[in-house]
């Protein structure tokens, strides 16, 4: 019985092994972080988990079900939501619309009902809206509700993306470099939110991160990668002190 497990996962682009026989297990309720220098294969693992890439070999198991063959659009419905390193928001839509789209995996109306906007659709829309408003309150986005994404500063966009992922009501949340591009204060806020997400919402977090202060503050376990291979695993402190990790980062 495991919550999420990657089994000797491998991904090859042409002759380059971006991910090479990586296995790890994420337990329910923990914050699990992947670290490593640029090109270590962290984001590739994310893209494999969210099924954007097909792995060359290996298996992905989520709640004891094999999700290696599940199409990418079904991942959210199974309870895995993600954010992106370089922000992939729907730029010409409002924050509210972005968050409502986060509820897409929970959609229960069909096209014909929507065409006529039957009372059922209206009721479901109101339910979606209430769920979205909870997330807005949780992440303090009230003042941005009706702004278009293009008009928002980078820091807020980052939060909106987190909010969109939360709207899907995931069991496992994938955060791809949540602090990249944020200043120190915003990064601290992000750390608090990640802790709240785990403690108040009970969501398991799998994260890629460079900022070691954030990693140390929130993660239960850290896996260090280099050239697509795991080199160390343990608490943030243990991994940071590991000689291979130091060598990988400092090129020693």
């Amino acid at each position, binding site marked *: 019985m495991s919550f999420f497990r990657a089994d000797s996962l491998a991904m090859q682009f042409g002759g380059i092994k971006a991910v090479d026989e990586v296995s790890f297990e994420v337990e329910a309720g923990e914050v699990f972080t992947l670290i490593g220098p640029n090109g270590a294969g962290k984001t590739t693992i994310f893209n494999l988990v*969210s099924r*954007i890439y097909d792995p060359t070999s290996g298996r992905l198991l989520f709640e004891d079900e094999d999700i290696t063959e599940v*199409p*990418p*659009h*079904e*991942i*959210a*419905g199974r309870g895995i*939501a*993600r954010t*992106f390193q370089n922000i*992939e*928001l*729907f*730029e*010409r*839509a409002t924050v*509210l*619309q972005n968050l*409502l*789209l*986060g*509820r*897409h*995996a929970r*959609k229960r*109306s069909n*096209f014909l009902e*929507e*065409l*006529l*906007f039957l009372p059922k*659709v*209206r009721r479901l*829309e*109101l339910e*979606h*809206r*209430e769920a979205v*408003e909870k997330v807005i309150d949780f992440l303090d986005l009230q003042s941005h509700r009706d702004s278009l994404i*293009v008009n928002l500063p980078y820091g807020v966009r980052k939060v909106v993306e987190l909010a*969109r992922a939360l709207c*899907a009501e995931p069991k496992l949340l994938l955060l791809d470099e949540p602090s990249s591009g944020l200043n120190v204060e915003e990064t601290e806020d992000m750390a608090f939110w990640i802790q709240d997400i785990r403690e108040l919402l009970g969501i398991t977090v799998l994260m890629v991160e460079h900022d070691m202060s954030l990693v140390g503050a929130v993660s239960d376990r850290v896996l260090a990668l280099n050239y697509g291979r795991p080199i160390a695993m343990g608490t943030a402190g243990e991994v940071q002190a590991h000689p291979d990790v130091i060598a990988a980062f400092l090129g020693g």
Partner: protein
Amino acid sequence: MRFIFKISYRQDLGLFRDRFQRDWYIALLLGLLALPVLLPDYRVDFSLMLIYGLCGVSLMVLAGYTGLVSLGHAAFLGIGAYAHVYFAQDMGLPWIVSIALAALVSAAAGGLVGLPALRMTGIYLTIATLAFALIVQEVFNRWESVTGGLKGKAVERPTIFGVSLQDDTSFYFLCLALLIAGLWLTRNVLRAPTGRAWVAIRDSEIAAQSMGVNLAVYKTLAFSYSAALMGVAGALFAHQVGFLAPDIFTVLLSIQFLLMVVVGGLGSLHGAIFGAIFVALVPVGISEARDVMPEWLGRVFSVFGQDAGSAVAAAVDGFVKHPGLEPGIFGLVLVLFILFEPQGFYGRWIKIKLYFSQFPLYKRATFKRQKSYMRSERLR
């Protein structure tokens, strides 16, 4: 500046933004109902405007909301037109059944194009739709048992539930009713999850997919729905022109539809309607100018002598009566809009409204476009 207080989530689900907007639309509707009485000479042009409005809504769903630019929408118009005429005249089906079947046939054709379109992005898709339209046009040419081929096919006026709509005014009201129905249905879809999924596909396919949007389903749906609207428009168009020939449904017509959504303003239903008004009324304006302009300019220039006046009148006469003028004007308008107002009439309208509502504080930079030099759309 008017501030809208939001006190219920229901407010964001309404058809209109607030009751002021609703009142304006009711006024507009009354104006449209009175139009054939006020300007009886232009009833035919106004019907065409309403039909184009439906075409604009159709292409707006696809290009403006889903981000799939089609250069072949005239083909769907043609499919709808021929299908309707075939069902209603050749098979003798009731008008309502026939137009519904025409929409279905067109939607099926749309789905057919939409399926391979899933694997293509950006400009490749545009080219594929163009190729599709050219093939369809050739089919219109050759499938004589249904389309009448190059000889064409005469179309009767519609007869609905035994009531024959012989005069232009009743046809105008028919078009108005169908346009309003089309707008209502489209607005419904756009404020529901499907509409949001389309916008999501437009702005970021990869994020849409990760949030649970099945790209195949929603792209095909957008194509089919857009084609169905186009099919209805085609059926009306057949009655409007009264005679179908394959050379009506050319690439040029498809381009005119794209022009409509660009000039109107991509990404808004208002834009589709503004564009339709523009495209339908420019030819009317040109034909008015044909009658008036040479004489008028001739009179102005006759201050330089009678000869100069008549020379100018003759030159202007030759110019405005030239058959090549109209497409050239459309081309020029397109170029000017892309260069100076890519948000189209609707974008300009929003800016003007904002200017007055924020009067001394309006900042031009509010709408400054961000240019991106990232090579993200490159085809490799």
